[in-house]
């Protein structure tokens, strides 16, 4: 009885010591009117366009003497095309595939997850199929998502540069 009272007192003291803690609005409570990243899924990307995206990403990397693994998946997140540049690191084979699949299945750049996790939204790491690293970008045709490209091998920022070159080559 006595200890319960002491705990209640301690809790009250803690609340007083952190003024406004309970009132702090949780950003996740906000209900936006529209769905974010509400892009419709389109026809799965054709092999020739997937290979054009990869060729552009590889060319960008080659220009800078970077060694990348580059993956393109279709609108279902399934592997369509892949290239490993000479000397690219092995771990990045899977990472590039993961980035591409994540970008397709969440319809957003994987950078969004990286930024969210960095910003303290650690719950993002509990979502299925998430990768918190930039370098995965959706491929878009006429406002519809037709696939995604993922690059890995360097720093996230290097991966993103290659990736953007690849996406720019085919997005329309």
């Amino acid at each position, binding site marked *: 009885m006595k200890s319960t009272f002491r705990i209640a007192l301690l809790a009250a003291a803690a609340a007083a010591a952190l003024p406004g803690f309970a009132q702090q609005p949780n950003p996740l409570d906000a209900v936006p009117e529209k769905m974010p990243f509400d892009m419709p899924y389109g026809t799965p990307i054709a*092999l020739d366009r997937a290979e054009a995206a990869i060729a552009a990403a590889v060319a960008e990397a080659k220009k800078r003497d970077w060694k990348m693994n580059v993956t393109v998946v279709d609108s*279902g997140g399934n592997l369509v095309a892949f*290239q490993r540049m*000479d000397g690219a690191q092995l771990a990045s084979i899977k990472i590039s595939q993961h980035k591409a699949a994540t970008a397709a299945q969440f319809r957003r750049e994987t950078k969004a997850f990286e930024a969210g996790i960095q910003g303290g939204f650690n719950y993002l790491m509990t979502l299925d199929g998430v990768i918190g690293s930039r370098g995965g970008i959706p491929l878009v045709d006429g406002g519809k998502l037709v696939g995604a490209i993922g690059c890995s091998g360097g720093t996230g920022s290097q991966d993103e540069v290659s990736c953007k070159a690849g996406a720019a080559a085919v997005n329309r």
Partner: protein
Amino acid sequence: MKTRPQLTLEDCLKISAAAEAEARRNSWIVAIAILDDGGHLLHFARMDGATPANAGIALEKGRTAAISRRSSGKWEEFVKGGRTAMIKMPGILPVQGGMPIMAGGTCIGAVGVSGVQSHEDEQIAQAGIDALPKG
């Protein structure tokens, strides 16, 4: 020190293009995977209309040939010959269509194909390998 040849991306582009041409010539639609001798993916292409399942099967056939240094069809023969225990070999898909790439007397990688009948898959894989200069 022992040295051995290594597949470059340029080699892979040649192999994949030749394999795809062989498939097209026969109006076949397939997925083509090229791996190094460690079973790691080097190049992949899934032709329009080939299924996601074909992608996974091509990879596994290729990996089988790469890490065992023999065709995945050879493993299928073992199983057909009664060695059903071979189904449980780790990392082995005992289905024809994965071919090792031999150079300088060693295995430097493999090609795996899936999409048509298994012997046709193998024909495509071999056509890809044949595009490499001999040696």
